[in-house]
């Protein structure tokens, strides 16, 4: 997540993010603590976790016309699909962030 607070808020210095705007600490930071795309992702996965498994159960039983057991299996599988999707998105997000950090470091080195 690119939700780093400004350096003054993170207490221990060894883990404080090396922000490029470290000189202008006194300026008020008006960017939101959590970016919108992160909130959208979390909201999407919350809604998916609530509605997808139980919704797929009713779809398979009422529309597909299969037995309730098959519906239960489908619901369990869908819950795990949402989990795998979440792990994938979190992993992807981390990768993008690391690449951005690498680029910044390279720029500083030049």
């Amino acid at each position: 997540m690119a939700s780093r607070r400004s350096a003054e808020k993170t207490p221990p210095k060894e883990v404080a993010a090396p922000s490029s705007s470290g000189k202008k600490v006194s300026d008020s930071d008006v960017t939101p603590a959590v970016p919108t795309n992160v909130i959208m992702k979390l909201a999407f996965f919350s809604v998916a976790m609530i509605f997808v498994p139980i919704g797929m159960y009713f779809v398979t039983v009422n529309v597909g016309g299969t037995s309730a057991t098959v519906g239960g299996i489908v619901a369990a599988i869908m819950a795990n699909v949402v989990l795998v999707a979440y792990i994938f998105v979190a992993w992807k997000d981390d990768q993008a962030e690391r690449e951005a950090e690498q680029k910044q470091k390279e720029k500083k080195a030049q």
Partner: protein
Amino acid sequence: MADSEFSPKFAPFFSFAGIASAMIFGSLGAAYGTAKSGIGIAGVGTFRPDLIMKSLIPVVMSGIIAVYGLVISVLIAGDLDPPPNKYMSLYTGFMHLAAGLSVGLAGVAAGYTIGIVGDAGVRAYMQQSRVYVGMILILIFGEVLGLYGLIVGLILNSKSSG
């Protein structure tokens, strides 16, 4: 077919007990997993807010435990009907109770594992990023405990509904 030796009046009681125990115990496990790993995530978030998204995985897994309880509860409830329409055998009632209890108590086991592993795992991940894959694997193996309970519950339930 009215009341008989095999389908007494109190047979549905055990079905309802199965529904309640699946939902109550499943939610209990999910609540413990969410709360305990939430403590760890809050601790990590104060130092490394950028890791919160990846640290939320134990919370999502705890949610799945509750979904398992919900699924088996809906399945058992689908089998039930009030007496004039259906006289349930005591055998079916006990089977529903077994299905509910196996899902619910397996959910408690899985939620307990996810809570403790999630708490310790995200704290370790804050200091050493290579812990992540191991943490995910341990969490998946913990979560599978709940899935086993669901599989047994589904098999039991399919026997009762024929």
